[in-house]
């Protein structure tokens, strides 16, 4: 792989907090790469090590071991930060400033001159639903408005890569919808996007790839399409004499439900097959539906398995 | 564990705070007789104040502020140059070993009188600043014993820091004659220091002394008002009556001046220790002022009252104070006049 194609590279990263006996490893020897133009979701429970990893990528934290590179430069270097836009998990913006002034500050730090800023700021505010809010003091901004402004400051210099920590934290449904559009637009423009999130819809709609982290270790790293497969689940509730139960159903371990049975099937082909077999066996189908698990449920199951394996 | 730690820290902080509050009381308990709170030498005031730790602390703050303002007047007098002289003088004055060097200037008793009445050459000290001030507002003084708070280059261990200190702050070589400024700008400090500590008798005294130097009716009246306020807070202060007597005399109110000097002398006699021994509680200032009050009481009685009465009170006072050359001379003069 060409080095120039890799935007973010994390190698054997270990992040520690505290000293001596109180040392706590937040990130335990993880490695991954984000390539140019990719959109990658970074998923994990609270305390899994997502923010710590992102902070190393931004140069806020120093790794105990390993390293992180951004565009081939050491993470945190001025050179690397020139090409990256960042939205922190939680950030208040200077309450004594106006939205326009704040964007002028951040844009100015990115090297944009005042003429460029004057041209860029109004459409950007408009794009993020903050039209006519440029001259409002930030102390009067709601949490959602602050988050939108945070996105604006991250993308003001049109960076090649975007790193968002907890993408839609604090946004209302409309805000999330608008944000998704902004990001899809950026994705279409070929920007690299790396973000942590809890929201399955965001992951589904925005990501090409997902990295799951648990207790400082990467537990899954796969394309979204592959990941979504095991998330589909189908449920059939039926009445039938147990002796007549077709084998295609029994292999999914039906459980008693009232005076009948309930079976959960995680494969669409097997689901169709089971439905046909039950109909042929003369079963009364009370309900048949598809049940999708949330990413969280999937994640909990996954880390549960990992935990058990580790215990063994 | 953390909660335990913070509780322990809180308890320790509370303990320190209580200890701080209790410290004056503890000090007094350990050595109550030696405790000297504030400026006031008045027994009653001291007793009331010493009963309450909070009053004591607040009182100390007020008297300390007053002291700082007093030092300020010294600075103003010397155009900002900080001299050590007065601090030493204060310390020595309570030990009975003071030897004034330099331009000590006695004030002629007759200077108190209107010009046409200056016939008698009796000598008396004026108070405090008058030790080294003349009526002329700006005059050069050479004080051999004087030393500046910022040391001279020879005495300074600080090298360049000392040099900068001498350049930035008002400073001049103490061995050279220095200039005293007009007292006008000192007056607000006397007003503020007596507001801060109404028992600052020296504040009232010297403030009134400077006001007297304006030689204007309005300021003399202000001086009287100022001293009346001082007397209200310090009814036993013979010094304030003495100063009020001086100013009243300047206003040609002889009868009242005479009464004020008498009052001052009587109060002084009551306070003065036997044989006028100088101590912490009876300083040179006290002794000088007490003698001035007695002499002026006799002098004004003789000038504006009855010579026989003057002779009587002079003899009575002399009996109490044992010896005083000036008073004895006054008596002899009156006897010879009478004859």
């Amino acid at each position, binding site marked *: 792989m060409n080095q120039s194609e890799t935007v973010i590279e994390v190698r054997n990263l270990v992040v520690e907090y505290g000293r001596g006996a109180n040392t706590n490893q937040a990130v335990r020897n993880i490695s991954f790469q984000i390539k140019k133009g990719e959109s990658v979701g970074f998923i994990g429970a609270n305390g899994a090590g997502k923010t710590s990893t992102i902070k190393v990528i931004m140069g806020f934290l120093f790794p105990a071991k390993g390293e992180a590179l951004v565009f081939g430069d050491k993470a945190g270097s001025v050179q690397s930060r020139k090409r990256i836009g*960042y939205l922190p998990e939680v*950030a208040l913006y*200077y309450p004594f400033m106006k939205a326009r002034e704040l964007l002028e*500050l951040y844009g100015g730090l990115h090297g944009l001159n005042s003429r460029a800023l004057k041209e860029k700021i109004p459409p950007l505010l408009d794009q993020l639903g903050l039209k006519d809010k440029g001259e409002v003091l930030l102390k009067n901004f709601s949490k959602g408005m602050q988050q939108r402004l945070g996105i604006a400051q991250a993308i003001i210099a049109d960076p090649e890569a975007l790193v968002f920590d907890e993408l839609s934290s604090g946004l209302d449904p409309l805000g999330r919808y608008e944000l998704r559009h902004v990001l899809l637009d950026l994705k279409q423009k070929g920007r690299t996007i790396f973000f942590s999130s809890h929201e399955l819809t965001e992951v589904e709609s925005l990501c090409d790839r997902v990295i799951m982290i648990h207790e400082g270790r990467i537990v899954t790293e796969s394309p979204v399409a592959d990941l979504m497969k095991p998330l589909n689940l189908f449920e059939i509730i039926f009445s039938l004499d147990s002796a007549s139960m077709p084998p295609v159903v029994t292999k999914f371990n039906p459980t008693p439900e009232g005076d009948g049975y309930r079976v959960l099937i995680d494969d669409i082909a097997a689901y169709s097959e089971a439905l046909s077999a039950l109909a042929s066996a003369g079963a009364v189908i009370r309900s048949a539906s598809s049940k999708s698990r949330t990413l969280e449920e999937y994640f909990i199951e996954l880390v549960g398995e990992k935990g058990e394996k580790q215990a063994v | 564990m953390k909660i335990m730690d913070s509780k322990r820290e809180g308890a320790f902080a509370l303990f320190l705070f209580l200890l701080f509050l209790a410290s004056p009381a503890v000090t007094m308990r350990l050595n109550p007789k030696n405790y000297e709170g504030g400026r006031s030498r008045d027994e009653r005031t001291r007793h009331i104040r010493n009963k309450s730790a909070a009053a004591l602390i607040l009182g100390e703050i007020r008297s300390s502020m007053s002291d700082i303002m007093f030092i300020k007047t010294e600075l103003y007098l010397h155009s*900002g140059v900080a001299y050590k002289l007065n601090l030493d003088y204060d310390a020595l004055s309570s030990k009975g070993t003071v030897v004034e060097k330099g331009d000590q200037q006695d004030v002629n008793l007759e200077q108190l009188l209107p010009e046409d009445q200056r016939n008698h050459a009796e000598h008396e000290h004026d108070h405090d600043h008058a030790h080294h001030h003349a009526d002329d507002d700006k005059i050069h003084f050479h004080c051999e014993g004087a030393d500046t708070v910022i040391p001279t280059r020879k005495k300074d261990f*600080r090298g360049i*820091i000392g040099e900068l200190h001498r350049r930035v702050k008002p400073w001049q070589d103490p061995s050279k004659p220095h200039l005293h*400024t007009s007292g006008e*700008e000192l007056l607000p400090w006397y007003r503020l220091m007596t507001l801060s500590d109404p028992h600052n008798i020296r504040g009232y005294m010297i403030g009134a002394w400077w006001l007297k130097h304006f030689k204007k009716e309005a300021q003399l009246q202000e001086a009287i008002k100022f001293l009346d306020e001082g007397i209200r807070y310090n009814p036993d202060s013979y010094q304030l009556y003495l100063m009020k007597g001086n100013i009243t005399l300047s206003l040609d109110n002889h009868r009242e001046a005479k009464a004020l000097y008498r009052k001052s002398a009587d109060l002084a006699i009551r306070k003065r220790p036997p044989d006028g021994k100088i101590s912490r509680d009876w300083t040179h200032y006290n002794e000088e002022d007490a003698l001035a009050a007695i002499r002026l009481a006799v002098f004004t009685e003789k000038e504006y009252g009855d010579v026989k009465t003057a002779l009587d009170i002079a003899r009575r006072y002399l009996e109490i104070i044992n010896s005083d050359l000036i008073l004895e001379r006054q008596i002899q003069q009156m006897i010879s006049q009478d004859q």
Partner: protein
Amino acid sequence: MRSIWLISRTVLLEAIRRKEIYAITLVSLLLLTVIFSIDFFQIEGLMKFYREVALKIMSMATALTVIVLSSRQLPREFENKTIYPLMAKPLRRTSFLSGKLLGVILAALFCFSLFMFVYIIGTLYVGGGIPWSHFLQYIYLQLLQMMILTTLGFLLSLVMNLDAAITLGIIFYITANILITSFTYLYDFVGIFGKTMLTVLTFIIPQLALFDFSGKTVHSEVWPPLDLNTLAILTAYAFVFSGFYYLLCIVIFRRRAI
């Protein structure tokens, strides 16, 4: 350079838009009014007294503002997490600190301007003139002092919590003026070890009293303004100390995780 200016502008903007400085100015104005409402024996034109009180209030209020402002700059950035979007920009940590330093100095200048306005109004009321050369030298030296206090405030806030940093800064400001004189007194009463210690302390503690030109400004009719040589030495002295504190700040801040 532009990034330093942008950061400093933020600090200045905070100082201008927040109410603290105006509140301090108003309280100072009130204090002056109260003091001058006292009847000083019907004497008018007490210029020295007015100068003394006004300059003292001006320097103390500015010093307190600077101590609080400088001490809270970094902790507030961490506490409110405003430092994250800022440090995600191509901004060096040294530029960030320099911007903050310049910003606090500008805020101190703003504070002085406000007080100067009050002072001039007061002078018009009291009567008498303003000794401009003394006054400007006074302001200049105060700014040098503020530079030392600012870097010290930054340093303290990097090694301890905000409250402790402010308290220590204030204690240092108050005692530094007393120390310079007390050392000269103590020197005659201590042994050789004490003398060595006092000498060392004299040189390692910044002598803030050297930047208080109020004495000569108050009695300006007697004392000439400072010569350029002295001003240059004092400037160098201030830069040595603030430079040292600033370097320590950089060393600590560069190693600090955000």
